[in-house]
């Protein structure tokens, strides 16, 4: 077998998987009533974006693996976002004694 640049899995399969994961994350973000689950959905969406970056980096970018560098930065920002989001959630819980998203309507006009 010849040394091919791409594996047997086509690039489109990775992109389809990532878009499916992203849409599942969007649905969970809209429909979750538990605030922790909303943060989990955001993490799922960030992972979908990371799969996209890694697939493009491996299949198209070749020598300069810029997608992998961007994926590392996305992981960094996701960690910071999770820490701040959960801290906000804790202080919100301390003030309203609930984590039901339907009760967080202070800014609604």
């Amino acid at each position, binding site marked *: 077998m010849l040394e091919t640049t791409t594996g047997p899995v086509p690039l489109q399969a990775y992109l389809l998987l990532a878009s499916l*994961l992203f849409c599942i994350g969007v649905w969970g973000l809209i429909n979750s009533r538990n605030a922790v689950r909303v943060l989990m959905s955001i*993490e799922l969406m960030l992972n979908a974006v990371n799969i996209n970056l890694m697939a493009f980096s*491996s299949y198209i970018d070749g020598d300069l693996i810029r997608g992998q560098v961007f994926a590392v930065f996305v992981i960094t920002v996701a960690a910071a976002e999770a820490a701040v989001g959960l*801290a906000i959630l804790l202080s919100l819980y301390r003030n309203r004694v609930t984590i039901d998203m339907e009760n967080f309507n202070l800014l609604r006009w």
Partner: protein
Amino acid sequence: MNISTSTELICFAILSMVVVLGSLGVILLANIVYSAFLLGGVFMAVAGLYLLLNASFVAAAQILVYVGAVNVLILFAIMLVNKKEDLKPIKSLQIRRVLSAGVCAGLLLLLARVDLTTPWALPGPIAIGEQATERIGEHLFTDYLLPFELASVLLLMAMIGAIVLARRDVLITDVGTGDSVDQSLIEKASTPLLIDKSTTN
């Protein structure tokens, strides 16, 4: 088809199935603790996909940061705020779910069409393979040096911000009134600052 290509195909099929079913479980299961552990499984499967793409460094970073830090943080948050509460029924919840599912399916169709109809520049140049880690290091210390340093500042800001947001008052006397401030670490029943109007009437 030789054994390596079929192995790769089987690995991709299993990992993508774990990712899709696990993420569906994360958003659909009623028990939030099961969701959190399934989320860890999804992160591990995504790390396996990175290994299939010859990116061992990012796979290790994914496991360390996501499974080791973010998932544990989520579990601690669940432990701190897990209170059995009966959610109030909402009018037309099912309609909302079906509508948003329709919107998400439309988004998925759009993305799939873009994915399948775009002529990608395939096959691209030869993939770098095992030297990826060295190349990431070169990138981080040459042309991506500024974002790398900014990421450290961002992490410091996030750390301080999380501490400030989540801590209790540790001052012994209140600055404004001079009263002594409760310093205990154990959660006590206290009246919430913002009374929920929807439950009182």
